């Protein structure tokens, strides 16, 4: 029997924790630092890659993803050194996907050629809005015009360029979003990530929201309408959703993110990076110190950047597979779920969710329907054993 992770593949995530400025909505592990000794960081990343490779040698590496923070602020030499090290450490798939997240400012786009030469073959751009007022409100430092320029530069250097938009923003009407989305789909190549603005605790928006000062956020009903409109328009343009918030022309999906959602194995390197690693037949969850300085120091002094490594029992793995897989349009493979969990999903609850039109079963898979996807959490609450 093959190990379960092979259904999803094997990827590597590199976390670059720094941003030029922190955005008010962002709850990712990002930090603003004055001077960054990129050489020192390089040594740490390379050491961690070496360590991870020792445990997973002979595995074919399918994808690499530079996330952040703002990885487009990394020196191209640093990116090149990391990619070289990766190539030397694992056998590569024929067509490895190596993505880097980028901000669409002129500073970042000035490095695109160098990133391409370093081995990056896919860019995921934080466009966020096609409206200057909203970009300012979201704390973004680029204008729409600058963003478009950066996008054009990127497509001259990379075959695959995706961008993110945030919607259901303050004072945004469904009509305005519809127009903006059509514009975005007009310029998109083959992939778009469309996230509804979520107010997270611990962010500037979270605090303003708690204080009642974040005005004009759409009501649930209105953001639900926007979600539905988004699905329709994207399908019309040939960009169906393959995940809750991700749209692509068939075949152009983010393969790295698919590894998460198909519950493959992934190594997480860098401050606050999470990993799932199957070692000696048991899947482990790993994480690392969130503070950049703490991670760096730990790698330097101990030669190991992990903060914890915990084996996951069958039930925990089954829940994780369920939570991830149900986000995908292709849904969950029930046979695979049974093999992980040892106990199938409650057939009564599955039948009930099917009866009320929230999920469908087809060829041994279950997936959320069009009406089910906007209330996926409610479906998951039913299905979690």
């Amino acid at each position, binding site marked *: 029997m093959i190990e379960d992770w092979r259904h999803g593949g094997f990827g590597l995530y590199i976390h670059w924790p720094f941003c030029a400025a922190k955005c008010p909505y962002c709850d990712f592990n990002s930090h603003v630092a004055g001077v960054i000794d990129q050489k020192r960081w390089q040594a740490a990343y390379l050491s961690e890659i070496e360590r991870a490779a020792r445990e997973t040698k002979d595995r074919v590496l399918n994808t690499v993803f530079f996330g952040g923070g703002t990885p487009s602020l990394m020196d191209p030499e640093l990116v090149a050194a990391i990619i070289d090290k990766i190539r030397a450490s694992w056998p590569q798939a024929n067509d490895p996907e190596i993505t880097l997240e980028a901000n669409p400012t002129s500073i970042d786009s000035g490095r695109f050629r160098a990133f391409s030469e370093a081995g990056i073959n896919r860019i995921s751009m934080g466009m966020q809005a096609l409206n200057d007022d909203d970009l300012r409100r979201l704390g973004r430092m680029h204008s729409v015009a600058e963003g478009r320029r950066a996008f054009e530069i990127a497509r001259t250097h990379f075959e695959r360029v995706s961008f993110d938009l945030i919607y259901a923003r303050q004072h945004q009407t469904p009509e305005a979003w519809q127009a903006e989305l059509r514009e975005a789909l007009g310029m998109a190549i083959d992939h778009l990530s469309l996230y509804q603005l979520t107010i997270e605790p611990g962010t500037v928006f979270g605090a303003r929201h708690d204080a009642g000062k974040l005005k004009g956020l759409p009501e649930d*009903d209105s953001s639900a*309408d926007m979600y539905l409109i988004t699905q329709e328009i994207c399908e019309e343009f040939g960009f169906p959703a393959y995940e809750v918030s991700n749209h692509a022309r068939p075949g152009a999906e983010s393969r790295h993110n698919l590894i998460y959602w198909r519950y493959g194995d992934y190594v*997480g390197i860098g401050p606050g990076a999470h990993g799932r690693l199957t070692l000696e037949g048991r899947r482990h969850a790993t994480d690392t110190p969130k503070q950049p300085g703490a991670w760096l120091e730990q790698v330097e002094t101990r030669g190991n950047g992990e903060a914890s490594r915990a084996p996951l029992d069958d039930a925990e793995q089954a829940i*994780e597979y369920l*939570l*991830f897989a149900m986000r995908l349009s292709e849904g969950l493979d029930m046979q695979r779920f049974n093999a992980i969990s040892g106990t199938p999903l409650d057939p009564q609850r599955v039948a009930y969710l099917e009866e*009320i039109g929230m999920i469908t079963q087809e060829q041994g898979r279950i997936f959320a329907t069009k009406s089910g996807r906007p*209330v996926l959490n409610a479906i*998951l609450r039913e299905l979690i054993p």
Partner: protein
Amino acid sequence: MRHGVQSLFPAPIFPCIRAPMTDLDRIRNFSIVAHIDHGKSTLADRLIQLTGTVAERDMKEQLLDAMDIERERGITIKANSVRIEYPAKDGKTYILNLIDTPGHVDFAYEVSRSMQAVEGSLLVVDASQGVEAQTLANVYQAIDADHEIVPVLNKIDLPAAEPDRVKEQIEDVIGIDASESVMISAKTGLGIPDVLEAIVHRLPAPKGERDAPLKAMLVDSWYDSYLGVVVLIRVMDGVIKKGDQIKMMKTGATYKLDRLAVLKPKMVDIAELGPGEIGVFTASIKQVRDTKVGDTITHEKRPCVTALPGFKPSIPVVFCGLFPVDANDFEALRDAIEKLQLNDASFSAEMETSAALGFGFRCGFLGLLHLEVVRDRLEREYDLDLITTAPSVVFKIHMKDGEVRELHNPADMPDLTYVDHIEEPRIKATILVPDEYLGDVLKLCQDRRGIQMDLTYAGSRAMVVYDLPLAEVVFDFYDRLKSVTKGYASFDYQITEYREDHLVKMSILVNDEPVDALSIMVHRDRAEARGRAMCEKLKDLIPRHMFKIPIQAAIGGRVIARETLSAMRKDVTAKCYGGDATRKKKLLEKQKAGKKKMRQFGKVEIPQSAFIAALKMDE
């Protein structure tokens, strides 16, 4: 109930009083009438303390209120008694028997029996607060029992005390002479000797024939885990001795007396009790329900001719369903109810099955306080989590064939085609309120189908008397009253009669299925407004589901109100990225645990709290 006190003195060896029986004119039997917090328990403590009845080291506050709930709420639930020996200033030593009565209307019958067992009362009034509604009800009971009444003004040490105003109020409102009120501060002990002298010289001695056949009143009884059922009695005529073969005249049961004792307040064995005396006995009685308060006790061999008047068994008037939150706790609930019933015969329980709530019990209580006390005890002493359904009263259903059925649960309402008419219990409610809140109180009473019977003033306080349906009072009337009067009103009631009215059963349908636990009996003219209010409430109380849910109120097959709870539109995590599922997993698992606090009803989950909250009326 008394085992709280018993456990203070667990030693099984009791001293024995061998002194000859006391002359009638050396006995004084009395009770204390007071409103909550006016100082009844503190005064009782002082009397016990000053006469050395309890050693200083054994003193603790509210000696006579043994239950935690009694101490916490400052109320007395069971009657209790203490025998005090008092060497008076005239050089003679008197036996003073205090019967501490439950002060609450729920226990009005028990109060009336206790009153019949003594000859006089101390009327304790807080000199800074004045007479309250509850005081009135109890003082009238004392007057009905032909008591000599000694007014006692407590808390005269407080700066806010207005003894003259309060004396005037006692004379105006109650109509007794207050000129010779005893002025005390139970807290500091000021005036306590005067109270003892007043008991001896102003209250009458009991009467009774020593040679007549035994006639004793069963005043109260309770279950003690060491001794079994303990019976509190007042001897009217004759003499009762340890080993006597006795007979309960109402139940016909006979017993042999194991032990005879007086309470000081711990049990002290005594050889015999004669006329005028108060004491307790045990006789291998298994359950409290075998002893009926007000019953007459006599000798089996030489019985008295007539029983004491006024016997009436206590009948539950308020019913509600008690269900375990966790269905697995049903057996534990059954055990707990059985144990509690050992000690509380007035609390009834029958198994009930609710489609919404599963297995539970339909329980009957003497009133709302009794309901709360029993529920608190079940939850606290037996560590149970309970769902309480809306309290309902007992309706009398007159069927067309002449049969009269008692309806304890609206869900059991028979088909209307066979029903001739329905009667409901009415109460006489007395409310005392500062006049600035009078309008709000009148509006509240009118809204609850009240008929005004009287309105008088005592100073700046109004006394309002209303004829109200008990059904309109059992739920949240008292809460509403407190809220509209900022807590300044006092309220008391007694059940007067059953009266016909246009009552209908209103059902609530959630997602087209009737939810039995939400059915209520309601006046026809108010059904629509009530139904609309309940549907609106439920719409807020039930969380959105993945589908839309109609919520309807119906009388028979006719829908009188309807709301629609729209389907949940959006509940999805936009970004689940970077491979960390831990946070999302924790969140969903927490939400999943929250679902367990709901009751599955068909496809709909209803939070437990909704079953009571849906009925609250915000006026």
